[in-house]
């Protein structure tokens, strides 16, 4: 079974600085998808960024980028120029391609606070 590990329960960053959130996963599949979701205090789950495992190029979305290391099964999220609105809980998630259910496996999440 696939597992997703987020070992840091909390992190803090100064506004305008850069922060990196760590995530590792375990799978025997060769092709899959990885995601980072943001959950602000409203608790709405919002997709931040996604990465297809077959793509070597790291995904980027404005101030958000990932460092995808397939061999190491590592998928970290970098937030540049941190803003107060980035404060939230962040979840790393994995989805395999086998089977019809397209289930997501989530990590336990990390709470990010942004200091003004």
């Amino acid at each position: 079974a696939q597992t997703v590990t987020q070992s840091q329960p909390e992190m803090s960053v100064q506004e305008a600085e850069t922060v990196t959130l760590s995530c590792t996963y375990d799978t025997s599949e060769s092709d899959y998808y990885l995601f980072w979701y943001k959950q602000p205090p409203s608790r709405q789950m919002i997709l931040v960024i996604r990465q297809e495992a077959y793509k070597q190029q790291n995904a980027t979305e404005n101030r958000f980028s990932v460092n995808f290391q397939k061999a190491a099964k590592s998928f970290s999220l970098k937030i540049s120029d941190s803003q107060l609105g980035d404060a939230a809980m962040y979840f790393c998630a994995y989805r395999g391609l086998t089977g019809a259910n397209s289930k997501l496996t989530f990590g336990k999440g990390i709470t990010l606070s942004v200091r003004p």
Partner: protein
Amino acid sequence: SQTIHQWPATLVQPVGSPLSLECTVEGTSNPNLYWYRQAAGRGLQLLFYSVGIGQISSEVPQNLSASRPQDRQFILSSKKLLLSDSGFYLCACLRDRWNEQFFGPGTRLTVL
């Protein structure tokens, strides 16, 4: 674009009472649908998923059940709530174009 509606937004129920949470999806047809539960300060646990009307798969044994009476309607139920059923319940659908799961606003359930 797809929209997911969940109601109620919040619910407080006594132990032993029944439960019915509803999720409806707009802007897509024949979606894969999912129910997740999030305990306080924790990650999401998949409870049920459905690939079509009347097709329900359960991920974990529990006090809850799910039904899909219509293509874009997904219902989470219980005959008798337990204290451990408290949590935040999220409905999601698979957005094929982006191969991602798109979430509804959630229902906060407190069992007293």
